[in-house]
């Protein structure tokens, strides 16, 4: 499956859940999806299309939080970036750890650095900082200008 086929296929398969899907560069596809469809899309990529989970990037873009999940298909070299936007008022999203263990650490890290809650994560402890780190202090959040 080449990149354009993959984009069309994802649009066809997940219809209105896919907000935007486009070829970012050579073999990299960026897909914006609805937050609620994350688990469905990730399950499909991991189980059906045999994508490998690389890592997730958490970002505070001032308006909202966004997490980009990076998946790689090692057969075709295709890199799929699945991006979800998470409102700041209710920072929570479905955890992918029950699907693949590889998401365990990074979800704990994002929880710790950005304060996003991952629902159904089996062990939502801090990964990096000790227990004496201030509660409610999230170093990767951008300061809100008045």
């Amino acid at each position: 499956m080449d990149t354009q086929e993959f984009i069309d296929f994802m649009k066809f398969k997940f219809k209105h859940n896919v907000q935007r899907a486009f070829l970012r560069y050579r073999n990299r596809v960026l897909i914006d999806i609805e937050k609620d469809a994350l688990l469905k899309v990730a399950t499909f990529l991991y189980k059906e299309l045999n994508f490998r989970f690389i890592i997730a990037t958490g970002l505070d873009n001032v308006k909202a939080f966004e997490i980009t999940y990076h998946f790689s298909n090692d057969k075709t070299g295709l890199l799929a970036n699945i991006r979800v936007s998470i409102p700041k008022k209710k920072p929570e999203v479905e955890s992918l750890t029950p699907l693949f263990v590889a998401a365990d650490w990074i979800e704990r890290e994002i929880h710790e650095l950005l304060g996003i809650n991952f629902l159904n994560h089996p062990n939502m402890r801090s990964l990096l900082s000790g227990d004496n780190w201030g509660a409610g202090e999230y170093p990767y959040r951008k300061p809100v200008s008045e």
Partner: protein
Amino acid sequence: MKQKTIIPVGPYHPLQEEPELFKLFCDGEIVTDIEWETGYNHRGIEKINESKTFEQVFFVVERICGICSTSHPFAFANAMEEIAQVKVPDRAKYIRTIIAELERIHSHLLWVGLAGHFIGYNTVFMWAWKYREPILDLFEIITGNRNSYAMFKIGGVRRDIDEKDYSKILKILDGVKPKAEMLMKAVIDDPVIHMRTKGIGILTKQDILDYCAVGPTARASGVDVDIRRDDPYAAYPLVNWKVIVTQEGDVFAKAVVRFLEIFESISIIEQCVEKLRKDPPGQIDVKVKNIPEGNGAGRAEAPRGEVFHYVITDGSNSPVRHKIRAPSYVNVATFKKSCVGQTISDATLALAAVDPCYCCTERMAHVYDSRTRQRVLDGRGLIQLSQQRTQTLKKNLFGKNT
């Protein structure tokens, strides 16, 4: 309730000199579960980079790891070149590939040496590190540094390889090849090493897929993944080489993968030097004026597996967000599978088998008996435990006189 014994390995790993804490839950000699704590050396590099210019970021990411110090700048350069849509000159591609492959050779030799030391084969340790020295000398000739080479920049490399150095590179590699062959035969044919490493710390194909492990850890379990081939970059598509895959998934298989990769790397470097020699000296970089707004993903196959960098830019001269994923981040998590069910002395080896990144030189691990306050086990004790096991196996195999 049954009492559980917890053997802490860390906060500074006694063998691998890196700051992380493994808690081995033991039932007698057998490890029944493992837990870990990380973050002792969290330097906030992703956050620091947000305040650095793109040129400066290269020097920061180069210091993430001392051993595979080129893989991070490599992945970062790939990411930035994707954002800026830059085409790197061929000569720079070959130079980049030579640096990355030399690094793989020295890193794999370093692992072989350490693995030998852990199981009480200090001769292997001495040999492997001795034959690693010429590679470091070669780095000094090419880049000016034995480590942290500062060769990469957006659009190319900083230094050219001098024409008179081609023969030096080939000569040193010619010297390393028979030594590596000898070392490989010595390790692969040794019955005691077989007994210590075969069937130890097995990771199945499914484990690798669950944990999304990469690099030699994955390739030793039959998962054929190598970013150099799967998402080709630099000069890898321009030379002939093959991906080494074995099926067993134990410590021995990981050693075999690393040994055979050394020879592939030597072959890649030889081909690159030949190509450089044929082409007249030319451009080694292109000028990149500004970095547009956007995002870029860069990947590179480090000695330990895929390094992944994701950079988000806003048109200024520093990144808005820079995500870095080192291969050990996913490989270390597989300990949950490889160590459980092993004895403590084998778990020590299984912990070393994925070749986790070393980043600190401190060492400390003491185990105290909670009632008598007597010291039970420390770093030296752990090594002794592992080395004694080899001695016992040796005695059983060869008799008392060996």
